[in-house]
C-alpha cells in the first residue's frame, strides 16, 4: 500500500483512512480534547498530504507512522495556539506513578509501552513524559528542570530512541 499511497492512488488513500482513521482521530483527540477540533485536524492533514505531490515518499517506510506524526504535529500546533488543556495534565498523571495498574481500555498496549518507559533512565523518562504526555516544548522542559536546553534535547532524543528500540525488540522477541 505504501507505494500506491506515495503514487497518490485513490484506493490507497481510502485504504489508509480505513486502516488508520480511528488511530489518527484518537491522536488528534488526545492532544486537542475536542471532537470537532480533532475531526478538523485529521481532515486538514490528510487533504494536505493528498494534495501535495511527494508529501510521502516510500523511503519513509510506514504510512501509519508518517500520518500519525503529521496529525500529531498539526494537533500540537493547534493546541499551542490556543489554551493549554487540563486534559494533558490528566494524561500526564497516569504516568506519574509507573507502579499503578493502568485503568484504560487497551491495557495490553499500554502495559507494553509503560514497561518500556519504566526501563528508561529516570532523567530521560522525565523528559519524555513532559514532552509527550504533557505536551511541553523542550524550552519549557529545560526551564522546568533547570537544565541546559542541549541536555534536555539529548535526553528526549535518547529516550525516544531507546523506547523505539525496546518496543521493536519486544515485538519480535
Amino acid at each position, binding site marked *: 500500500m505504501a507505494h500506491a499511497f506515495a503514487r497518490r492512488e485513490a484506493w490507497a488513500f481510502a485504504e489508509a483512512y480505513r486502516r488508520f482513521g480511528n488511530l489518527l482521530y484518537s491522536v488528534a483527540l488526545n492532544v486537542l480534547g475536542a471532537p470537532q477540533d480533532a475531526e478538523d485536524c485529521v481532515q486538514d492533514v490528510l*487533504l494536505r498530504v493528498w494534495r501535495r505531490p511527494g508529501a510521502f515518499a516510500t523511503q519513509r517506510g510506514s504510512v501509519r507512522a508518517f500520518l500519525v506524526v503529521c496529525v*500529531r*504535529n498539526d494537533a500540537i500546533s493547534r493546541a499551542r495556539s490556543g489554551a493549554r488543556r487540563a486534559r494533558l495534565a490528566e494524561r500526564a498523571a497516569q504516568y506519574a506513578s509507573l507502579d499503578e495498574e493502568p485503568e484504560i481500555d487497551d491495557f495490553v498496549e499500554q502495559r507494553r509501552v509503560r514497561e518500556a518507559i519504566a526501563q528508561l533512565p529516570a532523567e530521560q523518562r522525565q523528559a519524555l513524559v513532559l514532552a509527550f504526555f504533557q505536551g511541553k516544548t523542550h524550552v519549557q522542559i529545560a526551564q522546568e528542570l533547570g537544565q541546559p536546553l542541549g541536555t534536555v*534535547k539529548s535526553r528526549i532524543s535518547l529516550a525516544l530512541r531507546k523506547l523505539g528500540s525496546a518496543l*521493536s525488540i519486544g*515485538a519480535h522477541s
Partner: protein
Amino acid sequence: MSEHAGENAELYALGLLDEPEAAAIELHARTCEECTIRLEEASIAVADLCAAEPISPAPKTLESRVLLGAGIAPKRIRHAPHWQAVGAVAAALLLAFIPAWVAVDRTTLARSDDNRAIARLAAGPFDRATFMSPSRQPMDAKVLYGPHGDWYYVVVMHPAPGMHVAYVHGGRMEMLGTVSMHGESGSLYLPINHKMEELALLQGSRVVADARLVY
C-alpha cells in the same frame, strides 16, 4: 538545511520543533537517506506511543469528509485495485450460478471451522494458553494452538456477541476475526501459519483479556 537532523529527528517526531525547524528537517530528509531512516524510526516510536493511548472510533462522517474532500467519488471508496475488483466480479458471477442448496451460511462455515480445529486437536500435539482479564484473573477462554504456530483455536465460554480476536505485536493490534457463537460457547479457528505470541479478546474496541503464547 544542509546539516543532518541529528537529535532533532526525535524532537520533530514528538512535535517539539517550531514550523521553520520542522520544515527544514522535512526538506533535508528528502535527500538524505541517513536522516530519513532516523526520522522513520523516531516516527514509529511516536506512533507506538500514540497507539498505546485510548483509541476512540472516528465519527462516521469523517470518512466521507476526508474522501470527498480528496475528490474521491463515493463509488470509489473502499475500491480495491483493479485486479482485485476483477476478482470480486468473477467471484460474484460464480456465486450467482451456484444453486441455492449449495450456498453455505455462517453457521455452517463456523461448524466447518470447528471440525477442522477438532481434526487438528485429534491429529497431533497442541499447546494452550488461558486468556487473562486486565486484573490478571483467568477467564473461561483459552487458545489451543499448534506447537509450531501454524494454527490457533480460540474457545470462549459465554462470549458477548461480536467478540473479536486480535494479534498483538509491534505496538499494534491486528484483527483476526470474530468469535462464532454456539449457544453458551463461542469459537474461532485461525489457520494462520505464523507464531503469534500474544492474542487479545476485544469487545468493540475494548480489550477484555489477553493470552501469552509460549513455543
